[in-house]
């Protein structure tokens, strides 16, 4: 009995340590980003970093304005959302309110495969299929552009948005729908006026997750958007995002401790802060619109 109790104690401690790995990972991410960024900001003024419109850290004539990378990131994210939100919501409403049980159970896992496709494969798709297809409509479109990268990222996050939205809509209690039907509403009216507002907090959470994915997506933009930091919000132009810049620098052979090496950590810090802002906004949105049944 003593032995068994001792063994239980040891096991519990080991399990706790495993649980703490997640905490240490978060701490390590924050520590590494802050440590290297601090070294970066010892050379570069924060004002220049936040307001400069030129990003050329690896050139002889170095400029350290992050705005072009932020603009690229926001533009591709916006294009992605313009695809993912309407498609995702339509699929979610269809699956949750209209589709027969069997269809839902079959389609959902297959849709989730869209989100499992390796992003480098999506990059190839954007570059060799989507861009040439867009060029038929827009002959002026350059080979690298944010539009096709954004469209493909949008497609990739459709399953995240639709799956979470569907879960949220299914959580709306049945009697609310029944009340609506009893008033003479059709399925579509019930879906749009009762279920969607009722599930709003869940839908907001789904969009926020979609935004986070789009902001952090790397390979599609690195392959299809070109890697030229370009201060523009026009999706038809080539540009670099924060993530694409990090990849570009990592592909070269930058010496450890150089300013170029530190710059990717500063860029990474901005990326983390951006996702954090979206998550906080999402948190408050969800709280603000939480429906109590």
């Amino acid at each position, binding site marked *: 009995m003593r032995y068994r109790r001792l063994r239980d104690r040891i096991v519990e401690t080991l*399990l706790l340590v*495993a649980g703490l790995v997640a905490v240490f*990972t978060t701490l390590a991410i924050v520590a590494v980003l802050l440590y290297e960024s601090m070294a970066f900001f010892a050379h570069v003024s924060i004002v220049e970093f936040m307001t400069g419109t030129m990003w050329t850290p690896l050139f002889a004539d170095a400029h350290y304005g992050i705005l072009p990378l932020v603009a690229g990131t926001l533009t591709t994210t916006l294009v992605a959302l313009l695809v993912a939100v309407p498609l995702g919501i*339509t699929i979610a409403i269809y699956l949750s309110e209209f589709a027969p049980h069997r269809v839902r159970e079959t389609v959902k896992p297959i849709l989730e495969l869209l989100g499992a496709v390796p992003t*480098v*494969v999506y990059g190839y798709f954007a570059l060799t*299929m989507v861009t040439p297809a867009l060029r038929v409509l827009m002959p002026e479109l350059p080979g690298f552009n944010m539009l096709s990268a954004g469209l493909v990222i949008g497609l990739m996050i459709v399953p995240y948005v639709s799956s979470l939205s569907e879960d949220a809509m299914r959580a709306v209690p049945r009697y609310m729908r029944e009340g609506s039907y009893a008033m003479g509403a059709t399925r579509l009216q019930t879906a749009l006026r009762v279920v969607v507002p009722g599930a709003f907090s869940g839908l907001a959470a789904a969009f926020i997750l979609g935004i986070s994915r789009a902001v*952090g997506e790397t390979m599609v933009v690195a392959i299809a958007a070109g890697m030229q930091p370009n201060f523009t919000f026009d999706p038809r132009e080539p540009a670099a995002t924060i993530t694409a810049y990090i990849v570009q620098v990592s592909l070269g052979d930058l010496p450890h401790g150089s300013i170029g090496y530190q710059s*990717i950590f500063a860029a990474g810090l901005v990326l983390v802060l951006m996702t954090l802002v979206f998550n906080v906004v999402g948190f408050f949105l969800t709280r603000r619109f939480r429906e109590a049944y």
Partner: protein
Amino acid sequence: MVTMEGMRRDLARREVLDRIFVLTGLVVMLACLMILAVLFIDLVRDGWERFSWDFFTHFASRHAERAGILAAWVGTTLIMAVTAICAVPIGVAAAIYLEEYAPKNWMTAIIEINVTNLAGVPSIIFGLLALGLFVYQFDLGQSIAAAGLTLALLILPIVIVATREAIRAVPKAIREAAYGLGATRWEVTKDHVLPYSTGGILTGMILGLSRAIGETAPIITIGALSFIAFLPESPFKSEFPFISFDWLNDPFTAMPIQMFNWISRPDQAFQANAAAAGAILLGMTLIMNGVAIWIRYRFRKKINW
């Protein structure tokens, strides 16, 4: 005034809208599914000429038609081994802790928040973490070990969440029966909870690994090489002790890195190689996901509490 006739017309109009929506929903859904098919067919068609035994047994080369993915698939296999060996035990242990042991206090809350947060951290940030911590601080260098550990941290939340769900599905009554017979908490977990949740745990593990296999950004960041014409040290030796871990320290490339490298070459001939590598990569991911879905389905059907 509202007449019967008017109401009927109104209802008919609204029902048409319903039907239009059903059609839209179906079209949108099918379009998304079609794209998956188009993606796969396109890759296979573009890379068709390159599928051959030689493609698997040759190193990368400056000549597109002689280049193969030998170093890439060996690298991917070894990295996945490290990832699985690290992520699965830690992830399952963490999940057991959170489901079976954790008291409701601030420490548990912090762990839970961290797991959720890690799932939302962009993958390239894990690359930066690994570059600063594993490559330079722990001095692992740009090695298979560093890559495997990085991906292990990346998929940890997936394994934890899936395992927790599987554990939660085991009914309370089973635990209570075991406790009633005098089993300790660990005995209940080891002999009852874990065996009954194997299906869910396997599903999580496969989903995690299928995510890791396609991840490109974090291992580019730690410095995967895109041109490697040698294999890592073999893990099996002819003399005692027959097993060697030297390969952990070797530089590496992986399937997605190899594909990315071929895509970025201006020479058109390499695009076929990229497509062929992509088709293989996509095929592996789809098979792994299919297996995961199948396991989930089978275990759900088999178990009758």
